[in-house]
C-alpha cells in the first residue's frame, strides 16, 4: 500500500559506492509523515549526504553504487545542495526557476503564473533578469530553494544548504524553512551542521555514526535523552554545544589592540579589485601584532578572503602596501620559497588548492627534509594517519577530511603568519576540537593567526581580536 503524498518510508536502507569497501550508510529504517521535518546528523564521513541523495532518488542513478533495502518516497522530490555555484543551472534568476518547470513539461501559461509567485515567496521579486552570479550567497541559496519548490514537489531534500552562508543569509534561509513547515507545504529532509537552528525545526532526528550505522532515530528530545552521550562521543554537534550571540552581527567585544611596537603584518591604504573599476578592498589599513589572533568577520562578499590573500602575498595590491614580518617585506614580491616560510594560507574550498595524486604527496609537496620529518606526527594528530590515508587520492576524502588535509599542508611548514579561510566549515565536533587545540598550540608557540570566518563560536574559543570587514573596509576593530 502506497503511503499518502509526502510520506517517506525507509526500511533497512544502505548504499555502497562502487569500489567502496564498506557501505556509506546502512540499516536505516524510519517513517516520516507528510509535512514533517527529518534532521540527519552525523560526524564527518558518516554518509548523511549520501542518505539524503538516496531519498532524492539520485543515488544509484547519478552516483554509481549499490542500494540495498527498501525506500518508498511518495511524490516528486526537490533538492538543494550546499554550493550555490554548482547547482544554479541558468544564467538569470527567472530562467533558473523556469528550468525545472520546463523539464517537467509545465505549459507556458502555468509557468508565467507560477514563476512570479515563487520569486515573491523567496523574496527575490524584482530580480527576474538579474544574473544569478551577481546575487549574494544568501540570495543564491534562496533562489536554489525557490527553483526546487517551483514544481511543488511535496518533499524537499536539503544537503547542508546554509554551509556557505554568513549568519544573516543562514537566518533568512531558516526563516523560509520555518514558514514552509508551518504551512505544511513540504516534507523536509535536512542535513545541517548549524544545529542551534536546525534542531528546533525537526520532528524526527536520524543520528548516523562514524561507521554509517544509525545511532538512533526518533523525536529530537528522545534522541537527545537516549543517545546524547554516544552522539557527543562520535563527534556530533548537539544543540547545547553551539552558543551563538543572540544577534549575529552584534558589536563584538574588541580584544586589546596589538602592542604597536611589533606589528608582523601592516596593511597600509590598500585597494584591490579583480576587475578594473570593481574594487573589492577600499583603502584598507590594518595592523596585526606578532602572535596575535585576529578574526576577520562580516558578510559574504565583503572582502574577507581577498584581504586574507593580500596579507600573505597571494594577491598584489592595486594601491597601498602590505608589509609582512619585521623586515617589512612586500609578500607579493617575495620568492615562493621565502614566502612559504613566512606565510601560510588555508583555502576555503580545500579541493581548489590540491596539487597531487595522493594524500602523502600532497602534504609532502615542496617540503625541506627538516619539515618532512614533522609530517607523520601532524597527520596522526589531524586524524589522517599516513598508513591509512597516505595512498588515497586527496579528491576522494570526505569534506571534513579534505579540510584537515588542507590544514596539514599549511601547518607542516610552521609559517610565522597563518591565514585560514573558514577553517571550521563542515567540521564535526571532534574535528572542531582538534582544530581549535592545534590553533591554540600554534598561537602559544608564537604563530600569528588570521581567521576569516562566520563561525562566532570559533572567534570566541580563540579569544581573537575581531575585525569586521564589510564592503572592503574595516568597519569595526
Amino acid at each position, binding site marked *: 500500500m502506497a503511503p499518502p503524498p509526502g510520506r517517506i518510508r525507509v526500511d533497512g536502507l544502505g548504499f555502497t559506492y562502487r569500489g567502496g569497501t564498506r557501505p556509506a550508510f546502512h540499516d536505516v529504517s524510519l517513517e516520516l509523515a507528510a509535512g514533517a521535518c527529518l534532521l540527519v546528523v552525523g560526524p564527518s564521513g558518516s554518509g548523511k549526504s549520501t542518505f539524503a*541523495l538516496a531519498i*532524492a532518488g*539520485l543515488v544509484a542513478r*547519478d*552516483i554509481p553504487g549499490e542500494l540495498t533495502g527498501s525506500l518508498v518516497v511518495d511524490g*516528486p*522530490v*526537490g*533538492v538543494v*545542495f550546499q554550493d550555490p*555555484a*554548482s*547547482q*544554479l*543551472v*541558468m*544564467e*538569470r534568476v527567472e*530562467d533558473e526557476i*523556469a*528550468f*525545472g*518547470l*520546463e*523539464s*517537467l*513539461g509545465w*505549459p*507556458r501559461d502555468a*509557468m508565467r503564473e507560477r*514563476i512570479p509567485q515563487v520569486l515573491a515567496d523567496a523574496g527575490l521579486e524584482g530580480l527576474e*533578469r538579474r*544574473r544569478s552570479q551577481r546575487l549574494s550567497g544568501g540570495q543564491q541559496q534562496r533562489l536554489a530553494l525557490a*527553483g*526546487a519548490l517551483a*514544481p511543488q514537489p511535496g518533499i524537499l531534500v536539503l544537503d547542508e544548504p546554509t554551509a556557505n552562508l554568513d549568519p544573516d543569509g543562514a537566518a533568512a534561509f531558516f526563516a523560509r524553512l520555518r514558514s514552509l513547515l508551518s504551512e505544511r507545504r513540504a516534507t523536509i529532509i535536512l542535513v545541517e551542521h548549524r544545529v542551534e537552528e536546525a534542531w528546533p525545526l525537526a520532528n524526527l532526528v536520524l543520528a548516523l555514526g562514524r561507521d554509517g550505522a544509525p545511532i538512533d532515530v526518533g523525536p529530537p528530545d528522545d534522541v537527545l535523552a537516549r543517545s546524547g552521550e554516544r552522539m557527543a562521543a562520535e563527534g556530533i554537534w548537539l544543540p547545547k554545544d553551539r552558543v551563538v550571540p543572540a544577534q549575529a552581527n552584534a558589536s563584538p567585544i574588541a580584544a586589546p589592540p596589538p602592542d604597536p611596537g611589533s606589528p608582523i603584518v601592516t596593511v597600509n591604504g590598500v585597494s584591490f579589485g579583480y576587475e578594473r573599476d570593481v574594487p573589492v578592498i577600499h583603502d584598507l589599513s590594518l595592523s596585526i601584532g606578532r602572535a596575535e589572533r585576529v578574526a576577520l568577520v562580516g558578510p559574504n562578499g565583503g572582502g574577507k578572503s581577498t584581504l586574507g*590573500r593580500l596579507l*600573505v*602575498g*597571494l594577491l598584489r595590491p592595486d594601491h597601498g602596501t602590505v608589509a609582512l614580518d619585521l623586515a617589512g617585506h612586500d609578500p607579493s614580491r617575495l*620568492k*615562493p*620559497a621565502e*614566502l*612559504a*616560510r613566512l*606565510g601560510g*594560507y588555508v583555502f576555503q574550498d580545500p*579541493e*581548489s*588548492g*590540491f*596539487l*597531487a595524486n595522493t594524500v602523502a604527496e600532497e602534504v609532502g*609537496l*615542496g617540503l625541506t627534509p627538516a619539515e618532512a620529518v614533522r609530517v607523520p606526527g601532524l597527520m596522526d594528530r589531524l586524524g589522517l594517519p599516513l598508513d591509512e590515508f597516505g595512498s588515497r587520492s586527496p*579528491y576522494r576524502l570526505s569534506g571534513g577530511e579534505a579540510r584537515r588535509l588542507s590544514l596539514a*599542508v*599549511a601547518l607542516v*611548514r610552521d609559517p610565522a603568519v597563518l591565514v585560514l579561510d573558514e577553517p571550521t566549515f563542515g567540521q564535526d565536533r571532534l574535528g572542531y576540537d582538534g582544530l581549535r587545540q592545534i590553533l591554540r598550540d600554534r598561537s602559544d608557540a608564537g604563530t600569528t593567526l588570521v581567521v576569516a570566518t562566520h563561525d562566532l563560536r570559533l572567534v570566541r574559543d580563540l579569544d581573537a581580536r575581531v575585525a569586521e570587514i564589510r564592503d572592503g573596509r574595516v568597519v569595526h576593530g
Partner: protein
Amino acid sequence: MIVARDLAPAQLDSLLGRTSPVLKLVISIAWLLGLATTVSAGPPLIVALVVIAAGLTLGRIPGRDLARALAPLWLAAVGLATFNTLFGAANGDPGAMTFAQLGPFRVTQAALAAGIGLGLRVAAIGAVGAVFALTTDSTRLADSLVQQAHVPERFAFGALAAYGAVPRFSEDLATLRQARRIRGLRGDWHPRLLVSLLVLAIRHGDRMAIAMDARGFGSGPRTLYRQIRWGWLDLAVAVGAVVTLVLSLATR
C-alpha cells in the same frame, strides 16, 4: 580573448541582440568561408568595416567594449601582417617589384599585398567574432540552437553550462597557482596544474549534472518558457549579410 561577459540590456534589446543567434552563427561561418576564397585586401576590409559599423549601431555595443575585445586580435593581425611582409616568399624572387629596402630586408610589392591581405583577414574574423559575442546572450544562443537548429537539448544545455564555466576555469587556475606559490613551489606554470584543473572541472560538471537531474532534466518532454521564432528582422539581417559578402567579394 572573447569570454563570457555581461551584456548591457541595450545590447540585448538591440536589433542585432534580437536577431536569431543561430542565424548570426550561420552568417559568421558563411563570411569566414567567403573570405577564405580570396587573398586580396578589399573583401576583408569591407566585411570588417560593415560588421563594426553594424555592431556599433544595430548592436549598440559601447565603442570602448568593442575596442577592448578587438585590441588583442588586431594586435595579432598587425604582427602577422608585418611578419609575412618581411619574410614573405616573394621577397626572394628577383623578378618581383621592390617596394622598399629596409636595411637588410627587401620588401616586394607582392609580399606587402599578401601580408596586408592576411592581416586584414585576421582582423575581419576577429571583428565578426567580437560582434557576435557582444550581441549574443548565451541563454538565447542555447534556446535558439534547440528551437531553431533542432540541436539535442542535452548538447545545447551542456554547451551553455560550459560557456558559463569559463570564468570559473580562470578562477580555479588562479587559486591553484596561489596554492603552488604559498607552498614555496617555483614557477607560475606547471603541467600538473592542468591535471588539477581538469579534476576540478569534471567534479564541477558532475555536480551540475546531478543538480540538473534533480530538477527533472531529461525526465520527459520539455516545454519552453522562452520561445524563439523566426521574424522579419532575421530575414533583413540575412539579406544584408549576403549583400555585404557578395559586394565585398566583387572588389577582388
